[in-house]
């Protein structure tokens, strides 16, 4: 997302005058945005049959002749130098091909860190196994390559490493004392202030001033990070589990001093990403070992290694202070705080973003700092910032409503802004209050008793809470799509994007079919391969809008080309691209559908087997002109056991305002998936980072508690389905919004049930006793 911002902003300065202003004010909105039919329909997943048969092949499942298997040994200290490294026993163990350490690893450049260049994908820019320095507890210090995984795993247990320790900052409490503002936060200023918010707060009729704490979390996609790599001469192929094939190819090329084209990254299926399936050490190490051994290499991390080598969501401490006037409007809104980070990554966890755009206030102060720690680079995890930022903000709004004796939804009605509070831009599409209205009605919010502990059933206290969900609209620049239309009436659309279960391939197949006036089955969507036209990464909920824009551009090019090919003998003769539309496998004049020629006929007459067009999407200028965000209202009903403090979510409803919904079935799943991850964030999940050693102490799915079936009730999801006039298809990405607001909805419901405000996540039972 920041890549987007940076690039867009730079490009903006020079290019704004002559780029097509497709999505700018005055331009005609995408006509498809209101078309019904295939778009929006609950089409089941195109990869469904493959996945239920176990035939979708993931990164660790690609076979190669002569494959060697890798195992990693990782550091057990946070900072210092390797003093001694005994590898002889491992080297002598059965089946071992080599042991790679900093002493014999190929010389490699550090991976450019995300945001430092448009295609930089490095989770950090530390050198990978190039010297004796240790930067975090869990950093790989050796890689064993053997004939079998069992042999590699055993040999790695024979490696002995001793270290010279150096003082490390592994306590957030200590690091906090040296917190500082980051240069920027994804291209935005780290702090914004208008008016004197502190003074306004002090003078306000009603006020809350509260501290919130959120722990570390890990993505824990069920698929373990893995890569299968092979060199062919100076060409490298990586079968990866990644949300960024192009960026990975470019970045790995920088590491090995290759051209981008020399690295091919394939990732047709990803077993869940959530921000975690990016470029970490393991792909680079596997490629290096493969180079040394001259054999294809499989690296598959253990669950523990995923915790140690792949960063997660960082820990934060946040202050939210709100001052309200007697009429319920806001005199002051303050959201500040600090997040733990490292000096070598670029993810400051933008928890103050929601407060910048959500509510109207006379004065505003947002400011966030980072505290540098010696730890694995933290990274983007589903709604980085917004998920935990809305926890703090929306809990505070709930507390404020209570002090004012106002219904929390009514309070939100009163603080609804007319334009974006920080940028002053008009909202492209904002129907938050409508989402609340519809959600409240369906959930039965009117049955809530605002008095805590008012409802009880046996040992269980019952309460309801709500909170706002919000996530920005992003569209990535720089993507392209290629459409190949064949005389047999098939369209093959190719772009290097990703399918991690969001439904991308299904939705875009629907899109292309609708846009080309073809049947769903006549379209093939190719993705997940860096040799295809560059696609956007799967991040920032931006893929759908980004891909859609490139497909629109490619279709426009195709229409032009088809009209040219149709020539003067066609019923379409003389028509301009904007006079025609696609229908029934061909083109026709918009207002005269009988002037029609099928694609097959056009290609046949021009003696072409096929026609291929490739085009890039325009720069995402719409997001510069408008305040573009998605919204939602989350409703939760909780039961809390009075004796044990156990919590159970008994009902949950999400009501969303995210533009046009493109596939009601996969969208429902996306929203629910986000909500469920939000339940984990709220109630059960926490990465235990031992501040004494900087070591994660629960690197296992048995001790890191993601919600299981029994934790999850039936969840209701509804949406406004109001298209955004300024986005492709009228749609917004929806991968992340589902998790936002959930923490607060749960915490507010817990309060309503028990009368206890828990301001530190997760809300485990001990905090309720």
């Amino acid at each position, binding site marked *: 997302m920041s890549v987007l911002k940076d690039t867009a902003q730079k490009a903006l300065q020079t290019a704004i005058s002559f780029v097509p202003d497709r999505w700018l004010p005055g331009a005609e909105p995408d006509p498809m945005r209101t078309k019904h039919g295939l778009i929006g329909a609950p089409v089941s997943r195109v990869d469904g049959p493959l996945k239920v048969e176990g035939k979708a092949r993931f990164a660790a499942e690609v076979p190669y002749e002569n494959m060697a298997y890798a195992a990693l040994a990782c550091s057990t200290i946070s900072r210092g130098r390797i003093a001694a490294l005994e590898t002889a026993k491992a080297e002598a163990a059965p089946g071992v091909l080599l042991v790679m350490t900093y002493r014999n690893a190929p010389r490699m450049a550090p991976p450019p860190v995300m945001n430092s260049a448009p295609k930089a994908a490095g989770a950090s820019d530390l050198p990978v196994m190039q010297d004796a320095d240790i930067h975090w507890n869990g950093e790989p210090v050796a890689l064993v390559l053997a004939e079998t995984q*069992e042999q590699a795993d055993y040999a790695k247990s024979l490696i002995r490493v001793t270290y010279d320790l150096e003082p490390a900052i592994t306590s957030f409490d200590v690091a906090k004392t040296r917190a500082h503002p980051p240069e920027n936060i994804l291209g935005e200023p780290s702090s914004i202030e208008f008016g004197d918010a502190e003074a306004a707060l002090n003078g306000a009729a009603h006020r809350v001033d509260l501290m919130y704490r959120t722990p570390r979390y890990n993505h824990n996609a069920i698929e373990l990070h893995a890569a299968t790599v092979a060199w062919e001469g100076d060409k490298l192929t990586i079968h990866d589990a990644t949300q960024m094939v192009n960026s990975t190819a470019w970045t790995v090329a920088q590491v090995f001093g290759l051209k981008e084209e020399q690295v091919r990254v394939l990732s047709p299926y990803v077993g869940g990403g959530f921000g975690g399936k990016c470029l970490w050490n393991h792909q680079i190490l596997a490629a290096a070992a493969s180079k040394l051994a001259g054999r294809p290499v499989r690296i598959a991390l253990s669950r523990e290694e995923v915790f140690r080598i792949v960063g997660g969501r960082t820990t934060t401490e946040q202050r939210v202070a709100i001052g309200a006037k007697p009429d319920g409007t806001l005199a002051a809104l303050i959201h500040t705080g600090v997040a733990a980070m490292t000096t070598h990554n670029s993810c400051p966890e933008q928890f103050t973003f929601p407060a910048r755009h959500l509510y109207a206030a006379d004065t505003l102060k947002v400011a966030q700092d980072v505290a540098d720690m010696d730890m694995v680079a933290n990274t983007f995890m589903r709604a980085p910032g917004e998920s935990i930022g809305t926890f703090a903000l929306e809990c505070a709004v709930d507390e404020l409503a209570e002090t004012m004796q106002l219904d929390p939804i009514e309070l939100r009605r009163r603080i609804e802004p007319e334009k974006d509070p920080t940028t002053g831009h008009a909202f492209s599409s904002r129907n938050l209050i409508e989402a609340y209205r519809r959600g409240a009605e369906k959930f039965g919010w009117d049955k809530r008793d605002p008095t805590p502990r008012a409802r009880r059933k046996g040992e269980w206290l019952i309460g309801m809470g709500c909170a706002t969900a919000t996530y920005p609209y992003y569209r990535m620049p720089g993507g392209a799509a290629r459409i190949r239309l064949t005389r047999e009436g098939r369209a093959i659309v190719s772009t290097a994007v990703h399918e991690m279960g969001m439904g991308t391939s299904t939705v875009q197949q629907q899109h292309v079919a609708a846009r080309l006036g073809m049947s769903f089955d006549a379209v093939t969507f190719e993705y997940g391969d860096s040799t295809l036209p560059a696609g956007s990464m799967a991040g920032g909920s931006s893929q759908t809008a980004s891909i859609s824009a490139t497909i629109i551009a490619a279709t426009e090019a195709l229409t032009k080309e088809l009209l040219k090919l149709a020539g003067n003998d066609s019923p379409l003769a003389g028509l301009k691209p904007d006079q025609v539309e696609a229908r029934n496998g061909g083109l026709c004049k918009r207002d005269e559908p009988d002037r029609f020629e099928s694609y097959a006929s056009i290609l046949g007459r021009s003696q072409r087997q096929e026609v291929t067009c490739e085009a890039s999407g325009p720069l995402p200028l719409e997001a510069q002109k408008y305040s573009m965000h998605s919204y939602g209202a989350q409703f939760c009903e909780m039961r809390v056991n009075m004796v044990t403090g156990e919590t159970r979510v008994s009902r949950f409803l999400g009501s969303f305002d995210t533009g046009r919904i493109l596939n009601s079935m996969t969208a429902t799943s996306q929203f629910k998936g986000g909500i469920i991850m939000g339940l984990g964030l709220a109630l*059960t999940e926490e990465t*235990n980072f031992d501040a004494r050693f900087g070591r994660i102490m629960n690197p296992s799915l048995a001790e890191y508690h993601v919600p299981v079936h029994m934790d999850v009730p039936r969840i209701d999801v509804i949406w406004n389905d109001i298209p955004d006039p300024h986005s492709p298809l009228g749609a917004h990405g929806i991968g992340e919004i589902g998790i936002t607001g959930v923490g607060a909805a749960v915490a507010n419901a817990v309060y309503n049930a028990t009368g206890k405000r828990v301001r530190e996540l997760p809300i485990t039972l*001990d905090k309720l*006793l």
Partner: protein
Amino acid sequence: MNPFDYLQADNASNAVKLASAAAAGKYLGGGTNLVDLMRETVERPDTLVDVTDLSRRIEARPDGSVMIGAAVKNTALAADRTVRRNFPLLSRAILAGASGQIRNMATVGGNILQRTRCTYFYDEASRCNKRDPGRGCDAIDGFNRYHAILGASPSCVATHPSDMCVALAALDAIVHLEGPEGVRMLKLVDLHRLPGGRPDIETELRPHELITDVELPALSFAARSTYRKVRDRASYAFALVSVAAALDLGDDGNVKDVRVALGGVAHKPWRALKMEAALRGRAATEVNFRAAAEGELSDAAGLRDNAFNRTRQADDRCRPR
């Protein structure tokens, strides 16, 4: 994982012979704990003797007692009609543990001898007196939410993670053993040790002693019993604390007899004898239960993350519902 020899035993004596013949032989049940610990290099046997083909019989005897073969799968024991009817707390305890898949693999013998889930014990980088005697214990001042509040020592504060054993402790189960020196019996409550200065020695078993059977003595009021487990998510998580309880209530509303054992609180399944004594003959009221629980926990000591367990214990009224 280190290389090892895999052997199968078709009877108990043979198993003992095979295991004793190896330098570092171990029995293999369902493997659900041992395989994990071998991957973590906590366990490094050179020989595994598969004992899953030993007795899988559940024999309900006329006197009301039940003999359970050590190779009986957890699922089979929980589903057994006699156990469900006469010892529901045991069924419930087993069903509270792990997942359907794991209960299908796990054996009774293996469940009893599963080792602690202390995450420092699992971590090669941490100091742990159990894995590496004398090195220290990183859990005492670390993450110890799941650690002991009863019977712990300055050497080790780990807990025994089994749910099943809590029920067995309440039921006065007897463990039948066969070893190189012959057969003998031990009460389950005497099988596991408190950590003391040697947390690495977890049981009273002698080298290569094999669990052959577990015997449930008859206990008429065990039919009136239950198991309550409190954990960090609704299912598939180890106990923060659990209670197995059976109650014999007289017509006068007084407690004639009672059995209570606690899980998740100590290095062994904790038989709450003090609490039982305090309740016998008393009226079965909430006040009395609470007072008895307080009494049991009078010696409880909280650590950084688990002090809340004390309150919980006292509050959990252990009454069958």
